[in-house]
């Protein structure tokens, strides 16, 4: 086996390293900077150049080596390379080749291009380890341009009614994707501290984002009438929201918003169906395009997706992991104090 599934994470015996391990290990290769993939406490880290600044910001002083997309790094008997996963800026699939056998760990991924992430690149392999957060046929995404129009319309209508528009989105990825696609001429944009921290890092990396204002105790929201406010999901509904008066219109941007029951449970006014993960069709296409016969499915509707893939003729198996993927119940990134 090129890769093994251990209690600490996905392990490569030929190179003695782990991929996105959830327990502290001596050598970790990381797909992207989200908290459930890049965890603290490892001896050394290898990640893409583009993912490095966010990881350094979030994990502090770490021993971090970087590689460009496509460049090969030799670790023991294993040859490791990163390939764009299209999930968030700097996110990668990890290709591991040992004596001619190629395995790919997808990390989190999506196939549709967005304005900020390096577009997904299919990688041929013998075995593919795929996430399946949205591995059910009820999850199919509309064209993101349609969703952007919906967000613009919502913001515009709220602004006209003298209300703030508070939109919940993850601090790394989703928030910047929305920032770079909304019509920023509609009005001012305010950001939660955790989102603005990420904005600053990505701007420094050369990403072009519209002007935003960090929400701090010194900021008087009244000076930004009808603003779009980007908040982390955990800040929604908390005391942080109280500063926006009168009661703002609230929304979430997530793939889960495609299910009415989940949308209603969030008790937000709107749910925009926008995900950084592949939908049902995307997962199936990604699996097909690898040319792999062995598919390991991790986080998501693993039982169902594995059964489906088996019926399609793949040798499909479930791998238990501790990845959270896109969840609504637990915030993906820590909020600053």
């Amino acid at each position, binding site marked *: 086996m090129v890769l093994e599934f251990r209690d600490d994470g996905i392990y490569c015996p030929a190179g003695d390293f782990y991929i996105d391990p959830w327990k502290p290990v001596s050598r970790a290769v990381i797909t992207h900077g989200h908290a459930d993939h890049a965890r603290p406490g490892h001896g050394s880290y290898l990640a893409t150049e583009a993912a490095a600044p966010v990881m350094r910001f979030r994990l502090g002083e770490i021993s971090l080596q970087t590689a460009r997309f496509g460049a090969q790094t030799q670790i023991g008997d294993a040859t490791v390379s990163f390939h764009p996963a299209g999930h968030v800026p700097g996110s990668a699939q990890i290709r591991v080749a040992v004596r001619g056998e190629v395995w790919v760990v997808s990390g989190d991924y999506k196939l549709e291009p967005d304005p900020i992430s390096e577009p997904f690149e299919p990688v041929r392999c013998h075995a593919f380890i795929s996430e399946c957060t949205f591995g*059910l046929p009820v999850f199919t995404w509309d064209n993101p341009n349609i969703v952007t129009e919906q967000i613009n319309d919502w913001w515009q209508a709220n602004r006209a009614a003298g209300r703030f528009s508070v939109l919940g989105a993850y601090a790394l990825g989703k928030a910047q994707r929305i920032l770079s696609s909304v019509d920023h001429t509609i009005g001012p944009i305010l950001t939660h501290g955790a989102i603005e921290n990420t904005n600053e890092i990505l701007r420094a990396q050369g990403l072009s984002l519209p002007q935003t204002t960090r929400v701090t105790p010194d900021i008087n929201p009244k000076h930004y009438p009808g603003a779009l406010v980007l908040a982390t999901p955990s800040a929604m509904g908390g005391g942080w929201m109280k500063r926006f008066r009168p009661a703002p219109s609230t929304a979430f941007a997530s793939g889960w918003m495609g*299910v009415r*029951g989940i949308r209603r449970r969030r008790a937000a006014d*709107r749910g925009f169906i926008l995900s950084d993960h592949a939908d049902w069709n995307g997962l199936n296409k990604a699996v097909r395009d690898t040319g792999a016969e062995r598919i390991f499915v991790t986080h998501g509707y693993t039982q169902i997706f594995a059964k*489906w893939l088996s019926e399609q003729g793949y040798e499909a198996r479930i791998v238990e992991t501790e990845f959270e993927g896109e969840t609504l119940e637990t915030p993906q990134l820590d909020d600053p104090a």
Partner: protein
Amino acid sequence: MKRFAALFTALDQTTRTTQKVDALSSYFQQAADADKVWTIAILSGRRPKRGVTTTLMREWAAEAAGLPLWLIEESYPIVGDLSETIALILPYPKEHEDQSLSYWINIISSLGSMEVADKRAAILKAWDSLRPVERFLFNKLITGGLRIGVSQKLMTRALAQATGIDEPELAHRLMGNWSPAETTFEDLILSDDPSVDLSRPYPFYLAYQLESLEALGPPIEWRAEQKWDGIRGQIILRDGQHFVWSRGEELVTDRFPEFGQLRDFCPSGTVIDGEILAFRDGRPLPFAALQRRIGRKTVPKKLREQTPVVVMVYDLLEQDGTDIRAQAYDERRAKLERLAASLPEGLPLRLSPAISFENWDSLARERENSREKGVEGIMLKRAGSPYLSGRKKGDWWKWKIDPLTIDAVMIYAQSGHGRRANLFTDFTFAVWNGDELVPFTKAYSGLTDAEFRQITAWVRKNTKERFGPVRAVTPQHVFEIAFEGIQVSSRHKSGVALRFPRMSRWRHDKPVQEANTLDDLKDMLDVYG
């Protein structure tokens, strides 16, 4: 359908009452009359007769989507709604054409009389010409149970805003025996002819749970009676006919043929509000006895003898054909007492006795005796109050006794529907019998959203076995189950059935070994059953 779908989306996208009323009101000003009538019907819980089974719908949806049936079945509990599951998995429609709501409802209504092949063709064609939200609504109209987050009260308010007709008047016009297929907007809403429908009931006045005795003011302004545990009913005697309505606005005349006798003794133009009870030897039988009568359309003689029913009357709404709801409670009560006194013995009608009390303490003592009397507690009514419509705070309060409780172990979990989709919310509980856990009840409510999320995460990690949507979990968590009554049951393994069970507390403090036992339940059965 586009307009109706837009209304649905607008209602679904806001939690603000005023925005909902505005959206409805503008719909009622713009939509075609036939669509308006159907919208009113849908929002008041009426629907076309179901003409196709959901089993067939699943099969056809799988076929149209090119997916195996099991994948639809697996997706359904995660989405929490079959109509939505089908709407989501189907490919985007090829030939969209906009037809009215009534057009689609006519198709749905005609499904019942079609051959299966024609049903299939009609439904596949509909799916292929409706957009996803419209498709969802179409499916919901077939399967029933479309909840839009709009109460009848809210709808009535919007209708009042759109037509300029009084809200209580509209509420009354919308009551009773009308069918959207056979009426028009003009007849139903706009025309003002009370004789249109002889059976039409008045909207029920519904009490709130008592918040504080002190806030009620002086006891002298209040009247008290037992809170009966039966079916709220309205008995209408007009023109030599009689009608019995349940609180759910269901006509249940045929299930209680006993009440036909009242025609011979009560004057025409009498409408009585009361509680239908299974009743023998001067006291109510347990609710379970009455349930056997509700479940069937006609009542065989034997069942009538086993479970005789009475109506325990507590209000008079119409006398000599005149609506007297605006009169004070005391006046209506005096008239009701005179009516009851004028009736011969042996009729299935009893006057709910007034409980006299000097102060709240003496009433509280009276309430303590409720369980022995087979009642749920005390009702408080303001002496000078009119009979209002719907659930309104202020004049009627229910003061229920505290529930019975037992500590039980969670052994099975199942995910919920609607806004509880993808969360484990439906649980089965067990008590100890020796070292075996015996299931005795299910419960769905009582926990906070945060607790449901917590238990859901736990269930995912502690599933021992799956039986379709049901998961057997490690017996580890103890919950306090509250319930209103306990009965012998031959249908349950434990031998008991509970009334209104719910989770009142998550007993984090209690180890699983210390949950109650089957003997504890049987002791309760001896005392309260």
